[in-house]
């Protein structure tokens, strides 16, 4: 199997197998989870089959299958080191998480749905990272949002699940729409949605950077990435996403899905980086998020809450580092970010799994109730220490290495900007590290150290089953391995990925001990300050609670909740104001539009609104007849009682038929006379049951308004008609010549009008009699539609 096919298979295998889950469930019953594990493993292997070429030779797997060629969208694979790295993370952690789930998920749960969505998610994620087409990327991107939504809301009856799921969907999917707009603009600039075409052609990249839509495109795409990775104001969905089952949180909301935004930033790095906009937007958002989320993580009491905010903060590190860019040196933080991305995946997934174990065994996630578990679950304790300390940046764990690289790149970035930034950026980086250290300590201390509170957790606690222990243990092993032998990940994972991002071969040298550098000093400062603020936790907490109480509007959640909660009410107010139920208003709207549509061409195009030569030679009886018509119509309008008005209406009808006679239309006159009487009868039938109780009192303003509308309508019709009846424009002639000449000859009828209605245009008449039938059937329905009461 060649690399292209292997990757295609890796993308679609989870989708197909997700479809097979219901079938397999019949066979495997509660062991269905192992089917999912097998799928993830298969994906891992399939990606692995494509890996050697990419990793060893720097070769990029590319290939295309036509999908919607008419819209310029194809299924394209672009597998470079970056994509490979994330692909491995997704499928690898997928294997661990699904194994873990076998122990975690109760047998009474709807496992079918659980694994289906996990597999769908994994497929979407793999599809996303290997997308070589922006639209394809977007599709998989949104699929991850939807599957995430489904998994957060796995316990569909719980209001908190619904809230969390909804929030994540609204924020990430709407961000996705912004990103789609960005991709469309990008496609607009480059003329195609093919990412490979852009990445392969430096001239295209230059063109993008010089295009007037550059900034807006960047912002739109960045909004998508930020929403997905819970950055900037969009971070608020992630803490609520913790309502998902813990393995899901570990998988989606720490290790993989939230990395999609980071992945996207890395993917578009070569296109947009090296500009001020990129640095300000990406790093700016990153730094702020890092600090805020770091502080908030420190303030949480729920284990998963700490981990959630910590994830946000850690993702912000990555964001910040990918944003480190100058015109001459676009890739300052790339290597550091990429390495930290991998490390974060390991230690954070591990911590989540530990949190799952703790919650599973202790039945609570509240750090205030937990404590002293080190005796009852020593293995878990050790694993947690490894992961937690790695996050805190303690050597010789992998977190330390990437934290160092973070500081280094911050120094480098600050220096390259100069001025106050030389100190400011590293200082902010350290502050972020301080929070990280503090909450890492808090996590370990809160759960495992201290005294066991027997009142809060009365029952006996023991180590979890092996299925739940092995995955975090494996991750802990990786944490140590990557920390001790950094060349292993650097060579096989980070270098190819960095090459993929920078579009040139990169060489990295990461060592555990690299001398007594400024960055090491910064690390030491971090530890000291971290311990300091950890000890001052209570005062900080009191201050913040007080602050939040006084100023609820400082929180972004406040605005989200306000918007969502008031949306329905506001929208209803809006709709009830526009859709008032008043037919009159609806009619006026329509009439005004009609008037406007006549007025527009009259204003723009007409030289003479009314033709100049009009015939004012008027025979007296014509004038009398027409005036009578008007008078009859007026009296139909003025007479307040129904019956007189109806009688006036029939007078009008008879007048019209007289006019038809005068206009040489006996058939019309006949029909008009008959119809008039019949409609009078129908009117009478109707008002038999309608005693006239209601009498309208027309106020002067309403009267004026209605008269004005009426006059304007009349004028518009007059203008159109007086122009239209100036005769057919030369040299064209009317179809009627044909009817007159051929009525007798071809259709054998003397009455041309009748021949037209039964022969030349008999099809119209077929429609017309259908209308008659419809009226009859409709009336039947009307009369028999009474509710059975």
């Amino acid at each position: 199997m060649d690399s292209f096919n292997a990757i295609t298979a890796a993308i679609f295998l989870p989708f197909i197998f997700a479809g097979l889950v219901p079938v397999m469930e019949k066979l495997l019953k509660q062991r269905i989870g192992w089917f999912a594990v097998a799928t993830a493993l298969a994906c891992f292997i399939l990606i692995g089959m494509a890996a050697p070429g990419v990793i060893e030779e720097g070769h990029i797997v590319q290939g295309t299958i036509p999908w919607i060629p008419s819209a310029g969208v194809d299924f394209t694979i672009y597998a470079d080191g970056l994509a490979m790295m994330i692909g491995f993370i997704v499928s690898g952690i997928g294997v661990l998480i699904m194994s873990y789930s076998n122990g975690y998920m109760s047998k009474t749960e709807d496992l079918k749905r659980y694994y289906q969505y996990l597999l769908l998610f994994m497929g979407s994620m793999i599809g996303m990272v290997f997308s070589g087409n922006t639209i394809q990327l977007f599709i998989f991107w949104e699929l991850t949002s939807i599957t995430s939504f489904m998994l957060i809301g796995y316990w569909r009856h719980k209001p908190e699940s619904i809230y969390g799921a909804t929030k994540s969907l609204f924020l990430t999917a709407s961000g996705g729409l912004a990103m789609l707009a960005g991709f469309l603009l990008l496609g607009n600039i480059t003329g195609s949605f093919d990412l490979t075409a852009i990445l392969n052609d430096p001239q295209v990249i230059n063109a993008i950077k010089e295009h007037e839509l550059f900034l807006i495109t960047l912002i739109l795409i960045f909004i998508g990435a930020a929403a997905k990775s819970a950055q900037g104001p969009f971070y608020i969905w992630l803490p609520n996403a913790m309502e998902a089952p813990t393995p899901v949180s570990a998988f989606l909301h720490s290790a993989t899905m939230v990395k999609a935004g980071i992945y996207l930033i890395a993917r578009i790095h070569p296109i947009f980086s090296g500009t001020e906009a990129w640095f300000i937007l990406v790093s700016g958002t990153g730094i702020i998020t890092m600090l805020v989320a770091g502080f908030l993580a420190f303030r949480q009491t729920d284990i998963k809450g700490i981990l959630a905010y910590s994830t946000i903060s850690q993702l912000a590190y990555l964001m910040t580092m990918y944003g480190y860019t100058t015109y001459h040196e676009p890739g300052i933080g790339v290597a550091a970010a990429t390495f930290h991305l991998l490390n974060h995946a390991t230690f954070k997934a591990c911590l989540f799994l530990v949190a799952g174990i703790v919650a599973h065994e202790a039945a609570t996630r509240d750090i205030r109730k937990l404590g002293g578990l080190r005796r009852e679950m020593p293995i878990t304790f050790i694993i947690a220490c490894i992961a937690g300390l790695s996050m805190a940046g303690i050597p010789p764990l992998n977190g330390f290495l990437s934290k160092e690289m973070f500081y280094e790149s911050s120094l480098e970035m600050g220096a390259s900007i100069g001025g106050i930034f030389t100190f400011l950026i590293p200082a902010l980086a350290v502050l972020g590290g301080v929070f990280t250290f503090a909450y890492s300590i808090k996590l370990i201390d809160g759960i495992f150290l201290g005294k066991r509170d027997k009142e809060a957790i009365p029952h006996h606690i023991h180590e979890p089953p092996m299925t739940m222990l092995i995955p975090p243990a494996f991750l802990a092993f990786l944490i140590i391995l990557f920390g001790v032998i950094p060349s292993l990940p650097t060579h096989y994972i980070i270098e190819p990925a960095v090459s993929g991002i920078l579009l040139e071969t990169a060489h990295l040298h990461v060592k555990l001990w690299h001398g007594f550098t400024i960055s090491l000093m910064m690390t030491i400062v971090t530890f000291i300050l971290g311990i300091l603020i950890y000890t001052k936790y209570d005062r900080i907490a009191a201050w913040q609670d007080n602050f939040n109480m006084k100023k609820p509007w400082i929180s972004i959640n406040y605005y989200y909740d306000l918007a969502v909660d008031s949306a329905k009410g506001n929208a209803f107010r809006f709709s009830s104001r526009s859709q008032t139920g008043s037919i009159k208003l609806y009619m006026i709207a329509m009439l005004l539009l009609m008037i406007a549509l006549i007025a527009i061409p009259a204003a723009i195009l007409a030289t003479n609104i009314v033709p100049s030569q009009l015939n004012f030679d008027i025979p007296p009886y014509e004038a009398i007849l027409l005036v009578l018509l008007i008078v009859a119509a007026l009296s139909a309008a003025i007479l307040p009682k129904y019956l007189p008005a109806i009688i006036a209406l029939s007078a009008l009808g008879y007048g019209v038929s007289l006019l038809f006679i005068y206009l040489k239309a006996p058939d019309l006159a006949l029909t008009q006379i008959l119809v008039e009487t019949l409609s009078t009868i129908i009117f009478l039938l109707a008002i038999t049951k309608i005693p006239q109780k209601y009498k309208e009192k027309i106020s002067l303003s309403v009267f004026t308004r209605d008269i004005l509308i009426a006059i304007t309508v009349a004028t518009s019709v007059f203008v159109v008609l007086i122009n239209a009846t100036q005769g057919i424009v030369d040299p064209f002639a009317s179809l009627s010549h044909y009817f007159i000449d051929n009525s007798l000859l071809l259709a054998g009828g003397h009455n041309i009008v009748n021949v037209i209605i039964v022969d030349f245009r008999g099809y119209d008449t077929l429609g017309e009699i259908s209308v008659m039938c419809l009226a009859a059937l409709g009336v039947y329905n009307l009369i028999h539609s009474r509710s059975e009461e």
Partner: protein
Amino acid sequence: MNSLIFDISITFMVIAIIPCIYRVIKGPTIPDRVIAVDAMTTVIVVILGIYSYMQESAFFMDVALVLAIISFVGTVTISKYLDEGAVF
């Protein structure tokens, strides 16, 4: 000659509609209006007669017969409605 008669009679007939319309508006009672419309149909029948007479074509006579019939139907219906408040 013919056209003069035509003009005179048609003008007279059209003028004759004026009182009908006047009654339709003025009333004062509903039967007055019914009478007015009925009378109007009579006038129209006459106009149709004049047309037929002048053009010597039977087309308008058909219209006249229809009008005579249908106006009877209409009048009877409205009368019954006035009387009984029901049509059928």
